[in-house]
């Protein structure tokens, strides 16, 4: 049984936010009108956190693309009163839109604030409806939604692999954000498979998990930025 996970190399991330937009287009996430955006109603399953620290001229920034981290021990699932969110055997935390009552307890229990609520009926002005992806349902108002790791892509990849009578191989199933990353800073795969790229990277000395101290055991793992190490011929220092 695979355990899907993602590794994001912060040294390579350029904070371009292609992941954000790729996710929106893939998953039929509507753009809220400007007025609502100003009120903090933007729905975004993966966003880049700027994380600026320090004072001029000693500043640092660690832009961090943050999707749902798909905790192995997710605080959101425990609190849902109607079992509208669950973690599947492959470690993907999913939301059942048809059951969700919209109490937003999960959004509050999530220490990463990575669950989004449909404040209104989703709007797709003009012909934007034409661009909707038929593989992903549009969410009604009043329910919580979140990153699914592009689960529909997994299903498709499985079907294709089955049709070709082979096992699912690394790279067959990749979420939209990882696929698009222009800097190649994102990796995706099976953490359980010790030979996979993600598993190897997750073992790296640069690897850390977001808010690890909370015991949520995220499956989105970051690689620290590292520093330039001068002309000593060594790789990135950790």
């Amino acid at each position: 049984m695979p355990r899907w996970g993602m590794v994001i190399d912060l040294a390579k991330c350029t904070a371009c936010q292609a992941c954000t937009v790729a996710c929106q287009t893939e998953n039929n996430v509507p753009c809220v009108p400007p007025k609502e955006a100003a009120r903090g109603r933007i729905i975004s399953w993966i966003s880049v956190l700027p994380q600026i620290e320090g004072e001029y001229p000693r500043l640092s920034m660690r832009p961090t693309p943050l999707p749902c981290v798909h905790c192995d021990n997710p605080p959101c699932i425990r609190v849902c009163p109607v079992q509208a969110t669950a973690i599947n055997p492959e470690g993907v935390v999913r939301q059942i839109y048809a059951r969700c009552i919209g109490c937003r307890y999960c959004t509050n229990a999530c220490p990463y604030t990575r669950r989004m609520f449909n404040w209104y009926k989703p709007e797709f002005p003009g012909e934007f409806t034409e661009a909707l992806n038929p593989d992903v349902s549009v969410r009604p108002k009043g329910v919580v939604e979140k990153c699914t790791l592009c689960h529909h892509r997994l299903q498709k990849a499985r079907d294709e692999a089955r049709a070709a009578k082979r096992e699912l191989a690394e790279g067959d199933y990749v979420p939209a954000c990882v696929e698009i990353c222009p800097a190649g800073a994102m990796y995706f795969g099976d953490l359980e498979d010790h030979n996979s790229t993600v598993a190897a990277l997750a073992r790296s000395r640069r690897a850390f998990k977001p808010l690890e101290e909370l015991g949520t055991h995220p499956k989105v793992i970051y690689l620290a930025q590292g520093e330039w190490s001068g002309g000593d011929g060594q790789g990135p220092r950790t």
Partner: protein
Amino acid sequence: METDRDHAHNERDLVLLQPVIATRRPFYYLALFFLGFTSIAFFAWLWQLKQGLGVTGLNVPVYWGFYITNFVFFIGISHAGTLISAILRLCHAEWRRSITRAAEVITVLVLFFGVGSVIMDLGRPERALNVLLHPNFHSPLLWDVCSITVYLTASTIYLYLPLIPDIAILRDHGAKPAWLYRRLAIGWCASEKQKRVLNRAISVMAVLVIPIAVSVHTVVSWVFAMTVQPMWHSSIFGPYFVVGAIFSGIASLLIVMALIRRIYLLQDYLKPIHFNNLGLLLLVMALLWFYFTFAEFITTFYGSDPSHLVVFYSKLSGRYAVPFWTMVVTCFIIPVGILARRKTRTITGCVIASISVNIGMWLERFTIVVPTLSQPRLPWAKASYSPTWVEVAITIGFGATFMFLYMLFTKFFPIVSIWEVQEGREMAIPEVVERVKSYFPGEVLPSA
């Protein structure tokens, strides 16, 4: 063994039936006034249903605001009644007799608004029954559903049981609608057997209701404490909420008592001593509340967990400083200032303190719910939350509707328990004498 004097008193107690029997014009005006707010709230809710929760001021990451504040607040007030009356009953505090009913009604009515607040807060209220269809017993919200349901049932029974003899009185006085009283009196004729059964039932319920009430507010607190969010995740929250609940409950009770006393001219039944006693209780709770608040904040401060400190400072000196310090003033400084002195612990004093406490306790709920949410662990946009007219309208509407329903109750049932007052007058005095005597060394009395 009724004496004549008692009998005369008993006759005079019928003044308590007066509000049920006769209704004066101001009542209707007042009712209309309240209903006006109710209808605005209803309209606001319909609007919210149609548009979605976007019409509120909620946002990412402040997903909870007024509604959940109201929920906690209303559930808190519900402790007024049942808990206080049950404790007083079990302690044989004889001064309770004229106030228990008023308290219990608060409990039952306000619980609906507590539940209602949660319904308001749901994105898909029509799916609320999913909590029964797909219950997740890991969720503190489901514990809430259970405990509130039990609490509502228990406190309704607890309200109803002592009502039966009074309903019978109403029935016997031919109060209309007669069928209602006939049915509700379920054949009460004050026989010894019935009295015995009733008294036992009330005692059992009183014992039952206390743990249920404590559990309810503990569980409400757990809705927050069971998450890992900064300044929610705290083991003190259970008792802290219970204390706060009783605190605001007593305050609400005091306000309601003062109103009843004033409107229905029940100075004889709700005497300064009642206010004094409840005032003292309120004082104790204020001190307890402060103790808990202090403990909570000092622990956070010394723990210095950065994510907690962010919330901590947002309350002490940041964006939420105004509500926070208003809360400290209204929950502690004002009530303690007024109630600690014998001279100011008058009825007016108590009412002022109580209003102040209720404002403060609402703010306390608010400063628990919102600051934590607006300072998430990961630095998102600095979110600010300010309610929209919808939330304000629904909040005011809830208050108004509560008042209206409370008024309505007084129009159907005596708000001071007639039979209990009578019983107290008839039986309690000797009983108390006996009891007090039994505290001291001396002759061994034959058991009663």
